[in-house]
């Protein structure tokens, strides 16, 4: 469906004016406070226990609010934030290497290809400093130097060392910190925690978010939960591509259902592809595993010059290899940014020079590094990654070059929020990867963990006070017809999924959708491919509702039903993703339109026509959505074009 209408422009009314350095202070000062003794009277629903939800739930409970919290895993500690490897940025300038809040702000706006809001990004950089203090106080075991000081490393796209890390397990350690703070509040009775419980819909009454419908995944009971405000911290939607570095349960249901209830969805076409993931090994592949970007410091990327060359890599002589990144980008070589490295690999494979099963891979070769530095030095730098690679592929990367291929990794798009992290629906707050707020069209490495914790520990707890203090909330009970209505719609839908009893599995649809999106709306998108996708997605959705099969009943642990419900939402979400990509005819960050490139093949932005956030309003089933543009303004960083040749 290609029809959509353009609605009125929108603005972020919550962001204060004045010098950018003072805006967050100003907002905190103007925000109304809730008297500590009154906080107990407010219930807040938090969906999600990742870095964003975990930190928010703990902090709100510490402040004295009654928190009701949800996650679909069996424990809050398993949210997918746990899988983040590399690190978390903060403008501490412990290295004395010229870092500052302003520089982190600048790098992030530029890294996002000038598609994010200056006010938000500046605040993120300011708050980053407090995050590290908070995490250290909780006992997060960051890497240390011998003197006991915190260690830092560098990440892509920047020239300073500002990344804090805990070996290759930074996300796990930060999440455990938040989980432990959350656990303390659960024991204190300030948080009612519902693990293995999945949000199915949002309850909106008089234009305000007042609760959710959720299913107990063990008993199957579908219940309503009511509150004064709802916080969504449900993570990213990258799993829509089926094969991604996300967890198997990662989904878009919460944000998609909120969208259908009126919340704007911003920039859904901004998805990030990571260049160095382990390629799929066959049809059975169920997910992809990331290999750290740091490998590109010493590994050399190449493919055979001859198409369809099936010789083992060690049998291909030097002059029959194409080190294409070094050839095309002589000054940056193997260290070009993520999007460039990803597209170049795809081009090689599309031209038939890919290696490994299905020709979907390129070599990342450490032979030169081993000859130059010795095997021990390479092992000291990358040993754990080499082990992980070997565990998955069964190949020894000290002897045979690694095979890598790009994979979907992160979603910059998400629900639209203002400076207060509140959506256009009053009382609905969205934090972490689920919102669209800070990364523009491309996220820099180590900045998602920073954003999740900034939102949860510091930003949301300050701004949600203002909403609650303004009052005006009428009491709502479970018998309210509006509440009953949403609950029965959710139940009906589950019943419909169970009653199709067709002949295809849920996974087969998810795989097909993923392949379609990857093909038509992945690394390179064109008018033709997107129109094709928009033609095919509704058909696939129709087929799904005609021929999916979900065994069992709704009144039990039914993992197929869980999946079916998520995939049904992906099938709707996908259409908006492709439409957004079609409408944005420029290239920017992770969104590459083949029609919009520079002579040397780089993304060409079109600031005149596209320097805005695309915020989509749901138009109703079978009707096109409404596009609202939020113009972006740059007062502190001047937009420029990137070049890496």
């Amino acid at each position, binding site marked *: 469906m290609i029809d959509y209408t353009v609605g009125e422009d929108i603005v972020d009314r919550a962001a204060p004016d004045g010098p950018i350095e003072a805006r967050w202070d100003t907002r905190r000062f103007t925000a109304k406070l809730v008297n500590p003794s009154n906080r107990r009277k407010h219930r807040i629903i938090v969906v999600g226990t990742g870095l964003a939800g975990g930190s928010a739930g703990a902090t709100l409970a510490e402040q004295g609010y009654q928190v009701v919290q949800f996650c679909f895993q069996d*424990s809050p500690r398993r949210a997918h934030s746990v*899988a983040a490897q590399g690190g978390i940025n903060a403008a501490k300038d412990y290295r004395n290497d010229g870092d500052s809040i302003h520089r982190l702000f600048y790098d992030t706006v530029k890294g996002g290809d000038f598609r994010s809001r200056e006010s938000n990004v500046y605040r993120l950089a300011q708050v980053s400093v407090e995050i590290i203090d908070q995490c250290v106080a*909780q006992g997060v075991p960051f890497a240390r130097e011998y003197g006991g000081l915190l260690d830092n490393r560098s990440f892509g796209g920047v020239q300073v060392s500002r990344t804090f890390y805990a070996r290759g*397990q930074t996300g796990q350690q930060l999440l455990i910190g938040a989980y432990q703070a959350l656990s303390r509040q659960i024991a204190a009775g300030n948080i009612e925690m519902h693990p293995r419980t999945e949000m199915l819909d949002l309850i909106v009454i008089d234009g305000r978010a007042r609760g959710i419908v959720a299913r107990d995944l063990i008993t199957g009971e579908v219940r309503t939960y009511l509150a004064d405000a709802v916080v969504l911290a449900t993570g990213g939607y990258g799993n829509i591509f089926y094969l991604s570095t996300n967890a198997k349960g990662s989904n878009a249901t919460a944000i998609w259902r909120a969208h259908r209830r009126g919340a704007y969805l911003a920039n859904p076409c901004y998805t990030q592809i990571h260049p160095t993931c382990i390629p799929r090994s066959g049809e059975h592949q169920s997910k992809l595993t990331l290999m750290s970007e740091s490998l590109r410091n010493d590994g050399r990327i190449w493919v055979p010059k001859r198409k369809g060359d099936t010789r083992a890599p060690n049998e291909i002589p030097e002059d029959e290899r194409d080190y294409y990144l070094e050839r095309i980008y002589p000054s940056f070589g193997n260290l070009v940014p993520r999007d460039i490295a990803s597209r170049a690999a795809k081009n090689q494979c599309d031209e038939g020079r890919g290696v490994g099963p299905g020709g979907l891979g390129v070599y990342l070769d450490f032979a030169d590094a081993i000859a130059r530095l010795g095997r021990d030095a390479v092992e000291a730098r990358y040993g754990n990654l080499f082990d992980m690679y070997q565990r998955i592929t069964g190949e020894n990367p000290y002897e045979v070059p690694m095979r890598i291929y790009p994979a979907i990794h992160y979603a910059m798009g998400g629900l639209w929020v203002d400076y207060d992290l509140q959506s256009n629906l009053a009382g609905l707050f969205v934090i972490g990867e689920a919102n669209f707020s800070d990364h523009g069209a491309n996220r820099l490495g180590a900045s998602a963990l920073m954003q999740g914790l900034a939102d949860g520990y510091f930003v949301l707890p300050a701004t949600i006070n203002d909403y609650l203090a303004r009052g005006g909330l009428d009491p709502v009970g479970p018998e309210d017809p509006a509440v009953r209505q949403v609950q029965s719609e959710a139940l009906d839908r589950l019943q419909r999924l169970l009653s199709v009893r067709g002949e295809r599995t849920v996974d087969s649809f998810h795989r097909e959708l993923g392949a379609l999106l990857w093909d038509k709306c992945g690394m390179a998108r064109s008018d033709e491919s997107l129109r094709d996708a928009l033609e095919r997605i509704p058909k696939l959705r129709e087929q799904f509702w005609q021929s999916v099969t979900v065994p069992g009943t709704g009144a039990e642990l039914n993992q197929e039903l869980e999946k079916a419900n998520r995939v049904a939402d992906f099938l709707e979400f996908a259409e908006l993703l492709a439409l957004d990509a079609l409408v944005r005819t420029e290239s920017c960050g992770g969104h590459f339109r083949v029609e919009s490139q520079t002579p040397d093949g780089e993304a060409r932005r079109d600031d005149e026509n596209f320097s805005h956030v695309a915020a989509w309003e749901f138009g109703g089933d079978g009707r096109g959505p409404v596009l609202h543009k939020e113009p972006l303004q740059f007062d502190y960083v001047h937009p420029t074009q990137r070049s890496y040749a």
Partner: protein
Amino acid sequence: MNLTLRIWRQPGPDAGGSMVTYQVSDVSPDMSFLEVLDVLNERLIRAGEQPVAFDHDCREGICGSCAMVINGRPHGPEQTTTTCQLHLRSFRDGDVIDVEPWRARPFPVIKDLVVDRSAFDRIISSGGYITSPTGSAPEAHSILVPKPVADLAFENATCIGCGACVAACPNGSAMLFTAAKVAHLNSLPQGQPERESRVLSMVATMDAEGFGGCTNTGECAAACPKGIPLSSIANLNREYLHALRAGRA
């Protein structure tokens, strides 16, 4: 490859269970163990049968969701490898493989291979944290942590809460899990103020949840996918005695 899987099927918490035999053919050595279950499940679904329920999420060895006893060993035959990271190349064509849930009283079976591990969450919430409400933290560099201490804390903090240690232990003890958290937090300067109360209340919760005592068989550390060392248990015992002597419950 062709394999025979004998899988524990149990429709619900109160229902009886039994091992059911399935043949899977034409699977590749590059497949992960969970991908074999995916293939089997798709086949069962198409045949109108109930698929095998099992917990999993990240499929990269870090979330701690996956949990299967494979041929009698929690997480299967490979050292320091979770079930989701186990690949078929660790098996041989024609193998018969038994797949069962964690078996321990405090981890009741919910369905098939899915068990309830919420007792672990309650052990953590009884003291497995450092009290530091948001906003109260001092500047990070005001707390120096010598590298060896940081490394020790980190090594223990890598526990993924999977429960393999309990499943491996003949007594169903949760000592390794609890010890890892105590070693993580009690070794750090930030953890000192709650050092005694933490260990006393975590151990009390562990006992109250019905986990067994430790008889030093060491099966836990052998099964642990994150290599949490047995020495952490000795440390837990020292911390516990110290706390009792200090008389600070």
